[in-house]
């Protein structure tokens, strides 16, 4: 007997989300979207429970989670940092900004700092090309980024 261990609040939330979509297998992407929106990531236990509630194999849920880059199984930091690597940002030096972030945080893309404060991801274009290069920390957008400014931006959250 395999056991899925989750807190009561999580179990109730996930069951509620599945129910709001009529526990339909076809709604699995919407369900995962909503659950990730709440918890920031989709650990194995959560996928197991979603599969169980929608009556589909967990291999299929994992197939979807691993296919779409939007879904992630790594927890996000308290302040998730996204670096835009779209064309405009890229040609204006986004990669150097990214390298500096990696250096100062001591993590790679897709990872979280050991204290859980920051996580680092890349994305393509946030629609603010006029401000390129752009990074986001949480919901806040920082434009015209340079490697020199990284330290100051991070200091705002420490």
């Amino acid at each position, binding site marked *: *007997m*395999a*056991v*899925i*261990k*989750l*807190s*009561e609040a999580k*179990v109730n939330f996930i069951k509620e989300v599945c129910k709001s979509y009529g526990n339909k297998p076809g709604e699995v992407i919407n369900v995962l979207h909503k659950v990730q929106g709440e918890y920031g990531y989709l650990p*194995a236990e959560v*996928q*197991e*429970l979603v599969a*169980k509630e929608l009556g*589909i*194999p*967990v*291999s*299929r*849920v*994992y*197939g979807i989670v*691993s*296919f779409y880059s939007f879904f992630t199984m790594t927890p996000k930091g308290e302040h998730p940092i996204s670096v835009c690597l779209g064309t405009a940002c890229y040609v204006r030096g986004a990669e150097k900004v990214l390298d500096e972030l990696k250096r100062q945080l001591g993590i790679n893309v897709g990872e979280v700092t050991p204290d859980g404060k920051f996580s680092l991801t890349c994305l393509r274009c946030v629609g603010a090309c006029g401000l390129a290069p752009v990074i986001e920390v949480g919901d806040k957008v920082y434009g015209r980024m340079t490697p020199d400014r990284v330290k100051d931006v991070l200091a705002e959250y420490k």
Partner: protein
Amino acid sequence: MINVTIDNKQIQVPEGTTILKAARMAGIHIPTLCYFELAGMKFENKPGGCRVCVVEVTKDFNGRPRRNLAPACATDCVEGMEVLTHSARVINARRTVVELILSDHPADCLTCAKSGNCELQSLAQYLGIREVPFKGEQSHYRQDMSPSIVRDMDKCVMCRRCENMCNNVQTVGALSAINRGFSAVVAPAFEQDLVDSPCVMCGQCVQVCPVGALSEVDDTRNVMAAINNPKKTVIVNTAPATRVALGEEFGMPAGTIVTGQMAAALRRLGFDYVFDTDFAADLTIMEEGTELLGRIKKFMAGDKSVRLPILTSCCPGWVNFFEHNFPDMLDVPSTAKSPMQMFGAVAKNYWAEKMGIKREDLVVVSIMPCLAKKYESKRKEFYKDGNPDIDYVLTTRELARLIKQFNLNLKDMPSEDYDDPLGESTGAAVIFGATGGVIEAATRTAYEVFTGKPLPKIDFTELRGIEGIRDAWVDFDGTPIHIGIAHGLSNARKLLERVREGKEQFHAIEVMACPGGCVGGAGQPYHHGNSEIIKKRTEAIYREDAGKPIRKSHENPSIKKIYEEYFGEPCSHKSHELLHTHYFDKSEHVEISE
């Protein structure tokens, strides 16, 4: 009907026919790789992914040629269509496609388990590919080995037959395509090992895999080592379905019965005693049939706590399936062990005692049409003091390989008998190999025990057939008995759900995991989608039964003797100890952690 012209041949086909099927109707061969059909078993795989079957549409619905080549397996014919299946352009494209597939394939055909049976190898030969012009990155995944199945995903061509089989035909759901682009692979959830997934080890994924990505665990070396060890007494037992399929590996037509030749070959390999799983199948009928009658009698006496229908428990893939998917019904299946495990228990207790052989000096080998049997033999409840009842399981394919290694040809073998006493069997035991056979065998015995009268007719043709779910009422001299049959696990799931919801009532249900029953087992010679082969094997099973002098399990003299000498009566204390088992809940449960 619509008119199409394929390779200048005019034919009429029903609307909705693919170019591939139309070509086959016209006797034109279009090579395929990912495409797979098991006619009559409701299994068709046509992801249109490999592009090996591309054809040139020289006249499309609009009267003009189609610009791109079209995949024949996934393109429907339209009125007036003209198609070339082997133009220079097509052959060129087909070669490039296969060369590209080969550029990400480990070319280790010399030691590959599928060599000689590999559809990619055949294609490369057919297209005359002598070198792979494309060099680039290659996929690397860790190998995974369950007790039954080896996964070597470096060889996967992403045809997704296994995924389709696992999810749609079997509804097991262990495998799914995961990741994307170049790193896409078919794997269990979270890339865990098969053994930790809901895999039931039926092995149908292995049976349909076109390449060496999925294959059986090879136990031939272990068996040879045991035979070479002078301290060991090595005995063998052969499952019903192996005798109607082994011949195919030696060029005999499907449906050739090779029982006697197989026994002779096994003796030449050096087995000390050659026994028959069929003996244990007769024993299974005695135990399971008695259990069935016991439950029916209690039920008729008004005991509402009785669990009906009784479910057969011979098929280890099925046992795994209900342990994973029907944990609320674990007390419904018969507690009788499978014939193979009964054989092991009898051999290592009754027979070993009789012969004065120590348990640890006796090696029991099974020849099975099945991959799940390899796993079953390793279940811990079938061990005693660290020693298993069945030491090794070889598939029909592995046995064929061994026989060839010994420079023997089954065709030249004389027909020999099995050894006594664990080699004597009836026609009822043979039919265990085909869907509906176990329940027919049980019915033959249960009828006579229940009514006290001889059977008016031995053949219950109403229980035979190839439909995925069947049911029949059998008249037990005034008492109607409702029997259900399912083969293929999606059918089993449907039938069981109907029972669980109370929509239908049965007294007994037989389930076999593999399409067609054991004749279509994953350890049998590869059928490459030709369901005629499975039909021929089934017919042979019933021919073998019809030719047997005794056709009811309870009339087997060796069975009568073993009850007199050892077990007393069916479902006695002693038989419960050795011939019955119990089941485990393997489903996922949610537990509150904080």
